[in-house]
């Protein structure tokens, strides 16, 4: 029997969202200890960030300026999708109501998503994606470095793995930021405009009292090399003080979910 036979013939995990042969990403991981409510909320929020960012990055397939960057962006999206599956699976376990990562990804409504608004912003030009990726990966890396010591062993393991991946994401975004910022006048202005467009969504990342010093220092280092300044722009408006983590999203979120969830909603429970 070949590996292919083993996947298509013997595996009974026929589930539309994963495709035939994909398992629970936490299969075999010791999950006997269920996380507390705080950890569950944290896993959901971090999982949503990764899922939505992954979806936006995947939109670059067939749209990136060069083949190599298309491959790179797809790789980044894959890493984040992997993180999302682990985190949403862990969140689903904690909720203990029979939900799966699938239900969380494909059957929740907009106000139930806890991702920060930065990741849902519509795809702009390549500079905009690099600005968003620089901010996102720098912030998430700082967060995961602390979560390595999280009390929940599963979250801690996901973070330890994620740190290595995010380091490469940050390096990729930083290199492009420098190349464009310190490039021609034209690329410099495009990169500066991209940072201005992304920056209003930075404050929201630190709503939960996360430490910002490391983030600011890393961003400064990149922008200095890129001959760019840290933008001075007002934060994006909130609704009654609420933003992404409270389930209050921008207009773009509904369109994103409509596309991402369309197959699951049109064919609930379908297997393929």
């Amino acid at each position, binding site marked *: *029997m*070949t*590996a292919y*036979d*083993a*996947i298509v013939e*013997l*595996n009974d995990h026929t589930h539309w969202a994963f495709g035939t*042969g*994909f*398992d629970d*990403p*936490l*299969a*075999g*991981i010791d999950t006997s200890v269920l996380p507390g409510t705080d950890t569950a909320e944290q896993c959901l929020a971090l999982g949503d960030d990764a899922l939505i960012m992954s979806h936006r990055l995947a939109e670059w397939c067939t749209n990136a300026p060069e083949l*190599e*960057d298309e*491959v*790179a962006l*797809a*790789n*980044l999206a*894959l*890493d*984040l*999708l*992997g*993180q999302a*599956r*682990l985190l949403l699976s862990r969140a689903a376990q904690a909720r203990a109501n029979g939900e799966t990562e699938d239900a969380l990804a494909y059957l929740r409504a907009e106000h139930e998503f806890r991702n920060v608004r930065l990741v849902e912003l519509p795809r702009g030009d390549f500079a905009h994606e690099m600005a968003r990726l620089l901010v996102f990966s720098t912030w998430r890396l700082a967060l995961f*470095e602390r979560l390595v010591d999280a009390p929940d*062993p*599963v979250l*801690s*393991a*996901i973070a*330890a*793995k*994620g*740190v*290595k*991946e995010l*380091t*490469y994401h*940050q*390096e*990729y975004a*930083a*290199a492009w930021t*420098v190349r464009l910022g310190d490039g021609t006048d034209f690329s410099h202005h495009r990169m500066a405009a991209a940072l201005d467009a992304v920056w209003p969504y930075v404050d929201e990342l630190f709503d939960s009292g996360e430490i910002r010093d490391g983030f600011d220092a*890393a961003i400064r*280092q*990149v922008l200095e*090399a890129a001959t760019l300044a840290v933008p001075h722009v007002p934060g994006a408006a909130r609704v009654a003080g609420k933003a992404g983590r409270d389930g209050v999203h921008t207009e773009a979120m509904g369109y994103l979910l409509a596309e991402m969830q369309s197959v699951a909603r049109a064919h609930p429970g379908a297997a393929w």
Partner: protein
Amino acid sequence: MVSEHRRAAGPSSGASGSTVSAREVAATVLDPELPVLTIAELGILRDVHDDGQRVTVDITPTYSGCPAMSAIRADITARLHDVGFADVHVRTVLHPPWTTDWITADGRRKLEEAGIAPPGPAVRPVPFTLSRRSPVPCPRCGSTDTLKVSRFGPTPCTALYKCTACAEPFEHVKAI
């Protein structure tokens, strides 16, 4: 799994009743993305435990989104079934996270022979730097006069390079 096929197994002979150990069998499974390496050489085979009834195999993903995990799981199960281990349980362990330092010396040699530049030592935590990392020697001609084409290659664990001395493109397994 397939327990009706289980053979009588004595405590000294392991779950298959044969003399070959479950570890030896599991260690021969090839990585689907880097098929020049076995999963043991790649360092993702973490543990094999045979209690005489059931074989428990622990594997770890290289990257969170590694799409090869279910194929690897299926390969291990199939290979062990083939030699008589009927009850096989493959577990995923996330901790400690995989590092390229676990690629064995044989694995590194085989990568190089296949034209894939093996990783250097992994530094933890990876320092944030805007400068070029140390050069990757060309696996074909040995020149260090190489250029990184892309940090990300056809699989999550590789980057794309080209050699300016012999003009060959090659892949490099990134140290993590």
